[in-house]
């Protein structure tokens, strides 16, 4: 694996499991009094973020530093992009300075794929438009596995703005690859047109779904992408699709609550619900660092092909 552009690049369940296994080792590294290993000494990683981000960027930055890699920061607001430099020229300029990996976030689906075709460095998709966000899916899988042991046979509801959500797309791929049953719950206007082809069930009735789930995964109402008047008001959204305190009471006591952040407290999730003990939102952030260490190490250090056993690696 040279790039991580989509969950599909991981080669199904075996590849995802391998990342999660490696993440176990990096969780242990992160718990040490000196949480740093020299594994990627001499490697340089550049961030190419065309969209705002707090946790993904800080998480990747922390992951790279804990692996002893050097990082190159690039923020669109203060760069030559403002002078009209194209994505291609920007990517090739960064590569010419000698980077081993470029982590790309872009508002357009497919931008990381294009970057990957222009440069020799490894490209990691940190979110492209409505398309995919593979490292988020990996950290969500890891967080669920940490709590439940496995995703096999578990019922996971993803609730909210599926249409504009790259997190939903990557998570549907990863959850179903690992054997979970996924139900999407959303108003019809916030479902993507292609949803019939996804390996999921669809429901419009959150109250009916909640008592049956092991995990309820809430998506952020992406106000910045809501230019098409798909909803009358946010209050109506909260009334029908928000995880309010009253709705959270319908959940089984052991059901888990997840959210990729940043949360709109009081919109898709009530403030009290976000702080419940079964809410894993902080665990997701914590695990994000270890998962991204695993991804960076697999791409830049391990020399291992995903989805192959050690014995197979020898024969290759």
């Amino acid at each position: 694996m040279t790039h991580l552009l989509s969950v599909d690049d991981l080669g199904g369940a075996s590849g995802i499991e391998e990342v999660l296994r490696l993440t176990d080792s990096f969780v242990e590294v992160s718990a040490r009094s000196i949480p740093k290993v020299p594994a990627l000494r001499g490697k340089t990683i550049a961030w190419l973020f065309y969209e705002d981000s707090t946790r993904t960027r800080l998480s990747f930055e922390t992951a790279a530093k804990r692996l002893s890699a050097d990082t190159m920061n690039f923020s669109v607001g203060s760069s030559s992009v403002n002078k009209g430099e194209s994505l291609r020229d920007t990517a090739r300029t960064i590569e010419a300075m000698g980077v081993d990996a470029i982590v790309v976030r872009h508002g357009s689906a497919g931008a990381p794929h294009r970057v990957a075709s222009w440069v020799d460095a490894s490209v990691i998709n940190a979110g492209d438009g409505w398309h995919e966000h593979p490292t988020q899916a990996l950290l969500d899988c890891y967080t669920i596995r940490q709590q439940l042991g496995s995703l096999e046979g578990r019922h996971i509801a993803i609730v909210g703005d599926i249409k504009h959500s790259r997190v939903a797309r990557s998570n549907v791929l990863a959850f179903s690859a690992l054997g979970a049953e996924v139900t999407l719950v959303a108003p019809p206007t916030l479902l993507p047109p292609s949803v019939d082809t996804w390996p999921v069930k669809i429901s419009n009735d959150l109250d009916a779904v909640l008592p049956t789930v092991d995990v309820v995964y809430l998506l952020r109402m992406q106000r910045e992408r809501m230019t098409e008047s798909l909803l009358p008001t946010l209050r109506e959204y909260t009334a029908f699709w928000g995880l309010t305190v009253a709705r959270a009471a319908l959940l089984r006591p052991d059901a888990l609550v997840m959210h990729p952040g940043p949360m709109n407290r009081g919109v898709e999730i009530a403030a009290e619900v976000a702080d419940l003990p079964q809410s894993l939102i902080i665990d997701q952030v914590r695990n994000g660092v270890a998962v991204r260490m695993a991804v960076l190490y697999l791409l830049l250090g391990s020399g291992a092909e995903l989805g192959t056993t050690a014995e197979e690696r020898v024969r290759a």
Partner: protein
Amino acid sequence: MAERERRITPPYGGVFVARTRVMSHDDLNRAVWRMAHEIIEHNHGLERVVLVGLQTGGVPLAHRLGAALEQIEGESPPVGSLDVAFYRDDIGLRPVLPEAVTDLPADLDGATIVLVDDVLFTGRTIRAALDALTAYGRPRSVQLAVMVDRGHRELPIRPDYVGKNLPTRRDEVVDVTDDGVDLGEMVK
């Protein structure tokens, strides 16, 4: 490095074929028993001693040493395991993935650490292990126990407790199991 790991790594890949039995099951037990006594003698007891087995081959040996120490002294020192993959100097030269999650039970500041591995060869695994230990604290001293010292050191590292000194050729492979120790080759 555990010989097991080397076996699945190019250019050493293939199937291990034993040629000579070097230590029997009983020989192995006697060596463990003697090394346990040496550890106690050298440290005047087991005060703050921690056994750390190196993944993968050193871990079962560390537990055997721990059991022997318990029989002799009435208490087993803490036994941990350490995977040195992220500290290796050959990352990028061959596939390097950890075999298991490191599990070190005790606070290592001021401890006397006995690193345990099955086979001592180039010394590079031990170099990586010494580096890794610094992430957990500052031990008072670090000692090294190995079942087989097969020579061919590439770094200035020597063991404190040795089960058996075994002269080998570089291309030979030493296989340490619970049953005993075999010398042989990898056959493609």
